[in-house]
């Protein structure tokens, strides 16, 4: 059986976001691109599942929809341990467009387990995994925070409001994963980086579809007023302000 992990590249989470072109586009000057944090955790767990499977999982493949400049990010995923990669050669315009491309990748590759991150740290669509599962009609769970392969079945834990559920799911299966699925992402070792250079990275053309949404303009949050500071011995004064003046408590 084969696992597909869908990844995208996003600005490093410490990036100070700026816009350009009259607030119509992200200013990419100086941005460091990283694997979307949730996708990176998904990949980490996928590799652990493969290693624990005693050969039942033959390979972990990563797929991304993006232009050639996304390749360093894909190589990083290969360096971390993915066996091979697929890049759909098209800009990731909106969630629908990306999900349609990935559905094609899943179908032509025969992947029975698909993992995606819960959200992406750029445009926060939080949609690709859910759309992909619908397009494939796979069994699916969201906010998956633990996952294991048990025989031919998936045992997964997911967060619910105020608690957790443990569930058993049959294949084919798509997991939309969140924090907890893995804690620390794997860091590529030198040997992994060397090996990544020669691992197969297949570039495929996109299938024909449109996009359904478009970000027309951006804005930054309004800056907040100055902080009203109190000294360590003025706790009572702060509580008084919060209670009587701001009426917050």
């Amino acid at each position, binding site marked *: 059986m084969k696992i597909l992990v869908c990844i995208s590249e996003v600005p490093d989470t410490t990036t100070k976001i700026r816009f350009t072109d009259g607030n119509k586009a992200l200013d990419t000057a100086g941005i460091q691109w990283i694997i979307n944090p949730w996708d990176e955790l998904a990949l980490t767990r996928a590799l652990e599942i493969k290693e624990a499977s005693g050969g039942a999982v033959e390979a972990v493949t990563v797929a991304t929809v993006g232009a050639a400049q996304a390749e360093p990010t894909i190589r990083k995923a290969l360096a971390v341990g993915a066996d091979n990669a697929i890049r759909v050669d098209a800009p990731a315009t909106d969630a629908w467009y990306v999900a349609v491309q990935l559905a094609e990748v899943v179908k032509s590759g025969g992947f029975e387990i698909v993992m995606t991150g819960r959200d992406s740290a750029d445009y926060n669509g939080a949609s690709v995994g859910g759309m992909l599962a*619908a397009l494939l009609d796979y069994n699916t769970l969201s906010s998956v925070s633990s996952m294991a392969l048990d025989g031919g079945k998936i045992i997964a834990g997911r*967060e619910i409001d105020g608690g957790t559920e443990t569930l*058993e799911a049959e294949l084919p299966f798509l997991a939309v994963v969140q*924090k907890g699925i893995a804690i620390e992402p794997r860091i590529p070792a030198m040997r992994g980086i060397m090996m990544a250079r020669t691992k197969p990275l297949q570039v495929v053309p996109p299938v024909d579809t449109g996009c359904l949404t478009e970000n027309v303009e*951006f804005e930054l949050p309004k800056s907040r007023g100055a902080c009203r500071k109190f000294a360590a011995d003025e706790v009572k004064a702060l509580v008084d302000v919060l209670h009587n003046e701001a009426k917050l408590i």
Partner: protein
Amino acid sequence: MSVLVYAENRDGLFRKATLELLSYAAEMAKAMNTHVVAIAIGCVQTDELVKLGQYGAVKVLKSNPDFNILDIKAFAKIIVAAVEKEQATVILFPGSINGSALAPAVAARLKAGLVTGVVALPTSFDPLVVKKMVFTGKAFAATKVTTPVKVLTLSQNSFGVAEPGTGAAVVEEFGVEAAKSAISLVEVKKQTGKVLLTDAEIVVSGGRGLKGPENFGLIEELAELLGAATGCSRPVSDEGWRPHSEHVGQTGKIIAPVLYIACGISGAIQHVGGISSSKHIVAVNNDKDAPIFDVADYGIVGDFKTVLPEMIAAIREVKAK
């Protein structure tokens, strides 16, 4: 034409996120000159369904009470059937865990444009343009939807719950043949009586400055006193001092309470992204130059070990009056 709302229930009751969503839907329907229909899946008592009328639903579709867990595939099929029956052009989901899971499943089946994390009413209806959060709380986008049917999820605490009116919704049985997914529940663990982080009006959060899990008793005590939820920063959940479900920030939960109290949290950009929509922020930190003070409205420069007990005592005092 109609606006269809997925009325999520928890243990058979409609909570704040659902009522907020209906309040939002009612305003949208008014602007579109149409009405709101809600759909509830799972076991909910009729009087609870009727109550949705107070928040603007004219009709509630009561569907498939035999589901005890979220079954994304089956629920999406039921909601799509409701969309077709009610000729809905706008479908709204709460930005809760389950609402966020269902919206893309429904949107993909309808090939409808989806905008998640919406924070305000549309600025335009034709074409539909809505404001949403992007870059994990660090910016907003105006997003245009180009399809005839639109799906939106509303960020929790972004709109507020309207004052309930006197309306009563008509309840209509709406059973749909939807095969269950090959997924079964093994175990469920629930904490009862705890305020949910994403629902809470007040959140009290602790960071690495608290030095260890043993000091979170102070955070819990303050939260309980204020009827607040507890949260934490990323290093705290990574270290296992607190559960991941409490992690506030870019890769955890993005929240918008009325009051956020950050204790021993330095204010890394990843954390600030998760709290920037809070209406008011109070910071307690012993480093006067900590970046958290750049986003806080009120701050105390001091050690949590002395500040928090004093704060708890002072709040007890004002509450007793």
